[in-house]
């Protein structure tokens, strides 16, 4: 089974639209994982039917028992996150500040602090309207576990792909260059970088590619809104060539992506548009690159 991850550095370049189109074109040949858990949007175009749901527990928060607390303040002294504040004669924990490090219960002389495990989100296994299995998730508000949730989503998606002997796993990755991105990219077979010829798009592409390069994973590039700025588009092509990034396709700056999203469809389903045909070419290129 081959794992393909789609990332972009910059948001709004068409990453999810591309991932959904590849899912549509691959259908039963691909399991799909929505790893943009911060802003998971894949379900909006795949209209999935939910098959399984599971709570995802990760991390802890401290809880002070107001009855047992003597107000000695030792917990406040050791907390490096300013998460403990006075509450009358005793202390309480600010849940949004607490990092769940477990230091305070270890030093509380009267054992009035307990650690409670936290529900960080939910993970779903669904079937898209095209027939693919889709593993997706929602992240609990304020959770700092997005990287771990990405790892869990990928683990389940990989298991589903193996169980059903599906040849491809398509991963919609996260924006940025931080922890969730690393968790999306690590261990994949091919990275698709979606970019646009804007100064921001170019800058973010170069930063995120630096992360990809360190993993040593082969990469391809899709330039969306390619005719928005001819000069920067040329610079991006030159960058791709210099770095050995395969150019997989270019899409014009038009309304097809927006119209598809607002109709609840993938771009590849937008019949009689140039973009739909190009999506097909992108998928064929990826398949041929990954074929043994």
């Amino acid at each position, binding site marked *: 089974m081959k794992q393909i991850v789609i990332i972009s550095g910059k*948001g709004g370049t068409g990453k999810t639209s591309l991932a959904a189109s590849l899912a549509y074109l691959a259908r039963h040949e691909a399991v799909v994982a929505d790893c943009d858990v911060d802003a998971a949007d894949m379900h909006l175009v795949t209209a999935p039917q939910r098959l399984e749901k599971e709570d995802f527990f990760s991390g802890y928060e401290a809880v002070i028992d107001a009855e047992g607390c003597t107000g000695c303040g030792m917990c406040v002294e050791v907390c490096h996150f300013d998460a403990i504040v006075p509450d009358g004669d005793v202390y309480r924990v600010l849940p*949004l500040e607490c990092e769940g490090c477990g230091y305070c219960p*270890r030093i509380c002389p009267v054992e009035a602090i307990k650690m409670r495990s936290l529900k960080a989100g939910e993970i779903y296994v669904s079937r898209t309207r095209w027939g693919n299995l889709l593993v997706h998730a929602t992240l609990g*508000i304020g959770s700092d576990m997005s990287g771990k949730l990405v790892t869990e989503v990928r683990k389940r998606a990989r298991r589903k792909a193996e169980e059903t002997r599906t040849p491809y796993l398509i991963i919609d990755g996260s924006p940025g260059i931080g922890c969730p991105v690393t968790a999306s990219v690590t261990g994949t077979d091919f990275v698709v970088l979606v970019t646009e010829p804007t100064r921001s798009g170019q800058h973010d592409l170069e930063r995120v590619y630096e992360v990809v390069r360190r993993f040593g994973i082969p990469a391809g590039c899709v330039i969306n809104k390619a005719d928005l700025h001819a000069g920067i588009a040329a610079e991006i092509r030159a960058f791709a060539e210099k770095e050995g990034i395969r150019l997989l396709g270019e899409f014009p700056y038009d309304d097809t992506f927006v119209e598809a999203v607002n109709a609840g469809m993938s771009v590849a389903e937008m019949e009689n548009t140039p973009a739909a045909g190009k999506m097909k070419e992108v998928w064929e290129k990826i398949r041929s690159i990954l074929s043994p």
Partner: protein
Amino acid sequence: MRVAIASGKGGTGKTTVSVNLAAWWRAAGREVLLSDLDVEEPNSGLFLGGEQMAAQVVYRKIPRWDPHTCERSGNCAAVCMYNAIAFTGKEVIVFPELCHGCYACSDLCPSHSLPMVDDRIGEIRTYAVTLAGGRRLTRVEGRLDIGREMATPLIAETIRYTATLEREGGITLLDAPPGTSCPMMEAAKRADLVLLVAEPTRFGLHDLTLAVETLRVLEKPFAVIVNKDRQGVTLIDDYCRKEGIAIAGKIPHLTGAARLYAGGSLLWDKVPEVAEALAQIAAYLDEKEKEGEGR
């Protein structure tokens, strides 16, 4: 007043609003400080540039093992809730990317063999920007080192530094990271008010609803800015009306503006429709500021 400009979805125009509102307002005579907290992908400099005035390296604290004094109790690995420390029986191994800097392993080590030491995560740079018309504004930028994964401590440090530059009666604009998790919340928490930039697509609407839920948990006042607004597409307006959320301004979808943006140009002094929207947003914020003073 400190205003965070955020969005659930990336690419909706957060940076466009931040840099152009900063420039427009400064040109209109207001004291403006801009702080770029999108430390994973800081882009405000692509539009504003400026002369670098200062730079400081940002460190966080992580434990470093001292094999000579270590008594091999294994206590450090036992207390770490993040699996950032492994104890093999002979050796202690620290995994910096998993460490949250809680000090538990270090403070509770019986032989004091895990002192906390500096670990570089990024940089804070300060720039003096000269605008068309000659006025100057200060821009601060947090920039995460490539290969580092933890953005939130750098964001917190960038805000702390920004606060030292704030002046009485001035306005601070924070260009927040996208999304709804920790990095975005860190920026929103330290603001008096949050502007959520949304685009009128189904993705845009969905991610806006997530951001709204997050800000409600934080109990932060907020308003929405519709960017790339299209005639006849009302899904953001409909949602805001239903939820009783104010729309502070609307920036129309214009191909000319998109091309200028692509090339790294500011829009406030070149596209009248954008300038008009910025005036609207500034007026909204002025009013909120007055309300705040009245309380």
